[in-house]
């Protein structure tokens, strides 16, 4: 079991009102799965992603990642888990605007102390995998949307994490480019990577093996695609 969520609750205080973003969520994901998380806005899917991605901790409940309880970790411990176990792909790409594609991909390696020469080699390899080796010295503003998202995917892959977490990865792309990105996800899934993808598009979710549907902070349905 790669991911094991037990009884996860997440409450927020918005003004005077308590918002129950997640209510007693149980979810298990095995290594190598390709899971889509769906749900209308306000269903709690972003909150779930943040917790799965170790960007946030639950109010109560236990999250075991690779059999390690990460639900009570502090900021810096979570940073280390994110660095080692999780590769993020965001809707808005989230690349450093002043850095080249190569440097963007190297970023996670800087924070685990990989020496510069090794870093470059690993980053080049990751960029090669997404077909962008010839663009590695370009900055994000010199790349198309699809190319930027590929750089982001390379960055997510470079540290060989346990999970690739993608949050609406095709949301800012046209359909054709989106399809290309989905192909890349499929190929990295075929290599044995675990992928969790948040989307609200049915046809994107259909690329996955399993669809988890959220509503009002609870899992409404969890079924094979």
């Amino acid at each position: 079991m790669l991911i094991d969520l037990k009884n996860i609750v997440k409450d927020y205080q918005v003004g005077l009102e308590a918002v129950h973003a997640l209510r007693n969520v149980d979810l298990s994901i095995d290594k190598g799965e390709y899971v889509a998380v769906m749900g209308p806005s306000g269903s709690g899917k972003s909150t779930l992603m943040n917790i799965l991605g170790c960007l946030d901790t639950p109010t109560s409940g236990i999250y075991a990642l690779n059999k390690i309880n990460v639900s009570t970790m502090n900021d810096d411990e979570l940073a280390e888990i994110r660095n080692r176990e999780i590769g993020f792909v965001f809707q808005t790409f989230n690349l450093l605007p002043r850095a080249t594609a190569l440097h963007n991909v190297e970023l996670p390696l800087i924070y685990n102390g990989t020496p510069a020469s090794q870093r470059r080699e690993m980053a080049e390899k990751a960029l090669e995998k997404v077909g962008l080796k010839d663009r590695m010295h370009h900055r994000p503003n010199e790349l198309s949307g699809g190319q930027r998202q590929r750089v982001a995917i390379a960055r997510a892959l470079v540290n060989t994490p346990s999970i690739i977490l993608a949050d609406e990865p095709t949301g800012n792309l046209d359909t054709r480019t989106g399809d290309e990105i989905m192909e890349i996800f499929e190929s990295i899934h075929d290599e044995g990577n675990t992928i969790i993808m948040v989307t609200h598009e049915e046809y994107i979710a259909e690329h996955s093996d399993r669809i988890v549907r959220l509503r009002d902070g609870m899992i409404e349905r969890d079924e094979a695609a």
Partner: protein
Amino acid sequence: MRFLIEIWEELKIALGALRAHKLRAALTLLGIIVGVSTVIGIHSLTKGLDKAFGEQISSLGSDVLYIQKFSWVDREGWEKYRNRKDLTMKEVNALKKYATLTKVVSPSVRTQQTVKYGRKSLERVTITGTDEEKTGSAFPEFGRDLSALDVANRRDVCVIGWEVADKLFGDKDPVGERIKIAGYSFKIIGVLEKQGSVFGHTLDQEVRIPIGVFFKLFGRHRWITIAVKVENPELMEEAKDEIRGILRRVRGVPPDKEDDFSINQMDLIMDLYKRLTSALYAAAVGVGAISLLVGGIGIMNIMLVSVTERTREIGIRKAVGAKRRNILWQFLIESLVISGIGGLIGIGFGFGLGEIIAAISPLPATVSPLSIVLGIGFSSAVGIFFGIYPASKAARLNPINALHYE
């Protein structure tokens, strides 16, 4: 190793950020440059002043006590001093006889006279009546000093200062010639080496004659200064006590009355100088500190802007594994780089400022390695002090909020 890799990367990030905003960085630098150059400039000037003053003081000898009716530093009760009994040869002889902690006891009495050689004359020459003992460091360059026999026999001989020789004799050898002081003829037996000046007053325009001759010519009612060189400078206080005891006995001062003489010392002048200048220095340091404060606030301001602008970047870095300390260092290094560069340029300007002031005014400037340490120290301290708040603010950002910051 890992720490070094991280710090190196953070330095590169910081330099990149500064390169991206050159004008902004330069304007921020300006504040630090002004602050540091003020501190350095003031420091090198005050150092120079202290050094020049110290050199002049020590040329007069710090182990020499000057016994006089008047105190050098206490000017309040002039009346009190004026009514004191004059010091006479009786006190000199008593000190010579009874003092054990002293090496040299030498009386001197001064007046100003015109000195003539043939048709040439020199006005306002200091005529010093003294004996064969001396506390100063000036020795004859030609001829000899006054001897015990010259003094005892009240011979009409004199030793002239370097400037007197230069002005009256030019290239001619003065030794053996005769000059006239207040109408009386003296034979020159020696010429003193050049001594230079103290506080703008030349020491070379002087003629020394036996003290007995002086009294005969100019009368006895003159202020005598008794210069005493102590045997061991470490026993300065004991020597003073001994002198005080001897003088009180000779002058018949009752035990319940205070001294009717003053024991003066160059240290007193030094103390006075320090008292006068420390207020000036404090004001100058205050100006420097305020400039640095302003520069530091500039750094803090620009770093807060930088953190806000790069909130999203911070979010990205945190998402891929940057810890608090990575973000903290990234911004702290940025402010340190600004303040450090400002400090280095400021040191250069400060030295320049010192040199310029030294060149166009009589104030001397001394460039010391301490100034460099001071400049780098102050600017780094400013960088850290004013950079830590923005940097820790950045380090504490919540990654989720930072990633969604627009």
